């Protein structure tokens, strides 16, 4: 029985097609979750993809977090369901308080679209369960506001609980403690700035993102069998 992965679309989201394509190429099954509907349609995992929800106006993710779908996503997360926020999706999850901290403007004050080397720090998450700790993955970044910040107490918590999921090998944007992605206490909600779907084919330059997407599919599959 194939797990169902919901992909949230806000007005201004633009990476949904890529996420869907990449997951489908790996044998996964995706469904669209429209921002205006307060439901996740019972999917086994949710992806909040990249893009520019509401144009990134006011603050990135600030308006999207109030969309009806985010209520359902919150419930799904609270019930232990896997949720992955990529780039803009990570920003939305932070605004929605599903993850701590915030994403600020890059230190160089310029948009960055370039390859990034990421080190996997923990495999106890919905996004890294098939990876290896210490593995270095080549996964591109594409953002203006990717500079992760949080207060000292939160940082201490993240470090102590091993909730920093991936770190930049060569920090491109000034992120605190080189943080590229984090998770919640349970490990089922993960947010990261780099785009695994953009590293899913040798033709495009890197397929290092595949292990992350496969991990997500595995987490979704585990959930689907759990709930049967």
């Amino acid at each position, binding site marked *: 029985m194939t797990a169902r992965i919901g992909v949230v679309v806000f007005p201004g989201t633009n990476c949904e097609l890529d996420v869907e394509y990449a997951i489908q190429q790996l044998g996964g099954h995706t469904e669209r979750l429209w921002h205006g509907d307060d439901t996740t349609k019972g999917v086994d995992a949710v992806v909040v993809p990249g893009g520019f929800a*509401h*144009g990134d*106006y*006011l603050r990135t993710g600030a*308006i999207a977090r*109030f969309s009806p779908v985010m209520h359902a996503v919150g419930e799904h997360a609270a019930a232990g369901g896997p949720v992955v926020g990529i780039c803009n999706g990570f920003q939305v999850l932070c605004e929605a308080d599903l993850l701590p901290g915030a994403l600020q403007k890059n230190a160089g004050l310029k948009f960055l679209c370039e390859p990034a080397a990421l080190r996997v720090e923990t495999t106890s998450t919905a996004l890294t369960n098939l990876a290896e700790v210490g593995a270095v993955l080549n996964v591109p970044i594409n953002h203006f506001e990717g500079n992760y910040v949080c207060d000292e107490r939160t940082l201490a918590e993240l470090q102590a609980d091993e909730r920093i999921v991936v770190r930049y090998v060569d920090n491109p944007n000034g992120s605190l403690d080189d943080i590229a992605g984090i998770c919640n206490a349970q490990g089922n909600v993960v947010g990261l700035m780099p785009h695994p779907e953009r590293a899913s084919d040798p033709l495009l330059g890197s397929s290092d993102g595949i292990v992350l997407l496969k991990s997500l599919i595995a987490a979704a599959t585990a959930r689907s069998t759990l709930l049967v």
Partner: protein
Amino acid sequence: MPVFNAHVEVTHLPGIADPAGATVERALPALGYTNVAQVHIGKTIKLVVDAPDADTARAQVNEMCERLLANPVIEAYEVVIS
């Protein structure tokens, strides 16, 4: 030399489109606020300036606005000195 606080507000010139304001204007009703007729979004810049007097401080901050803080082609600015 006395110290002055300058409070600068930069907004779009009237007649220039404000996509950010329009987007927030559209988003508020969904949160239950249907009585908001218009939203404009700008920036606030606060500076602390050493100057012999308030007039000099104001003149200098105006110059800063013209040259850097605002883009006179599409933005208007308002300076308050205290």
